């Protein structure tokens, strides 16, 4: 299989200029992954807080139930099905003809899906913080939400950073199904190259290497970032 690998690779990607398609796809993949994870973290933090607020009154209980239903639904159905449902089922008429429609729906769906997982990650992060921190914040006159935002969440996020990094890694790879709603991501770009050259091995092998390098580069920077955050821990 590896006979002539580099020759074929050169023919397809350099002489045939397929690298341009791959770069386009890479941009889409990264845009989806980055914005979806950001959306997932913001929404996930809100859901997590809904789950940990003391269940003292009806409003708190209401938010808790909403969060529970949300997490159950989005974790309980495949992201691929959610993509098809949102793109073809729920929003067939919205933004019709707009060139970035599929991209926006993909970010939305991957973000909503990720939020369900991130919520559980952040919730465990919040619960890992000593309850004395909340008491100290409240005793200084902070409200519950101020204490959450300024005291608890910054510490919780630091504790769960490895898990959030993992979520981003999962996301980079998960976006490979975005092609099913016409997004021209890395995988979709590669599929079109395969179709053009009737050669599945070299393009798909290259695709795998590209994903692997993406994940490795990200892991490297995540490790550096984590080390800097640990500054206050010595």
């Amino acid at each position, binding site marked *: 299989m590896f006979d002539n690998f580099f020759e074929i690779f050169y023919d397809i990607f350099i002489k045939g200029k397929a690298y341009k398609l791959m770069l386009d796809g890479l941009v889409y993949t990264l845009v989806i992954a980055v914005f979806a994870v950001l959306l997932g973290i913001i929404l996930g933090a809100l859901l997590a807080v809904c789950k940990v607020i003391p269940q003292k009154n009806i409003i708190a209980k209401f938010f808790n139930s909403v969060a529970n239903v949300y997490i159950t639904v989005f974790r309980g159905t495949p992201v691929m099905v959610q993509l098809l449902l949102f793109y073809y089922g729920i929003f067939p008429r919205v933004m019709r003809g707009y060139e970035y429609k599929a991209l926006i729906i993909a970010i939305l769906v991957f973000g909503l899906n990720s939020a369900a997982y991130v919520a559980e990650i952040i919730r465990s992060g919040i619960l890992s913080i*000593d309850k*004395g*921190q909340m*008491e*100290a*914040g*409240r*005793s*200084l*006159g*902070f*409200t519950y939400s*101020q204490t959450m935002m*300024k*005291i608890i969440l*910054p*510490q919780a996020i*630091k504790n769960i950073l490895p898990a959030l990094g993992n979520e981003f890694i999962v996301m980079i790879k998960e976006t490979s199904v975005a092609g099913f709603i016409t997004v021209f991501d890395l995988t979709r770009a590669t599929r079109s190259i395969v179709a053009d050259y009737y050669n599945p091995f070299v393009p798909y092998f290259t695709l795998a290497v590209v994903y692997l390098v993406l994940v490795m580069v990200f892991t490297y920077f995540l490790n550096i970032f984590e080390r800097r955050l640990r*500054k*206050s*821990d*010595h």
Partner: protein
Amino acid sequence: MTTNDVLIKVEGLKKSFGEIDVLKGIDTEIKRGEVVCIIGASGSGKSTFLRCLNLLEEPTGGKIFFNDVDITDPKTDINLHRQKMGMVFQQFNLFPHMTVLKNMTIAPIKVLGISKEEAEDRAMKLLERVGLADRADAYPSQLSGGQKQRVAIVRALCMQPDVMLFDEPTSALDPEMVGEVLDVMKQLAKEGMTMAVVTHEMGFAREVSDRVFFIDEGIIMEEGSPEEVFGNPKSPRLQDFLSKVI
């Protein structure tokens, strides 16, 4: 004596956790400038009593007036009143992700709305008073237990509270560090700060307090001046307690 001299008034305070009645009806007052020490066996409810004063524990019955406002009334904004009630915890509860200076200034800046410069100025003066000005940029994990607790005290003071609540402030400290924390508290008492201190340090209670509460079985079983409580205990429970701890 006018009612204005009473800073905290407690009426029929009750607290139960599920089936267990921890506080069974406490009536008392704390006057401005007064130092009250609260003693009692573990599990007697003395920490619960203190934590009820700023509603860290929600009372199940009774009323608490602070500056003549009923803070147990659900309509009262407790956050406003907590600004005026400093609290020091057994486990320090410093914010580990912030420097000493940030620990002290975050609440004055965000809650009281004073400027960063003014807050830092206030914090540095307090740090100097407790001999920790050179540690302003350190993180809590770089401090000893005694230093942590002194920072926790000045963090509460930075809000310029009307009263300071101490919940066993020296119980988590190594013995050689107890003195430095008690010294700060003594100085504070001398300056006229109103203080409520839950403590096992009988020497401190005897020396510094104006009044001593002995809490047992969920009530204030005996109260009086340190001379009365330590010198002439009336109830058998207090006699028994003192014979064990002194």
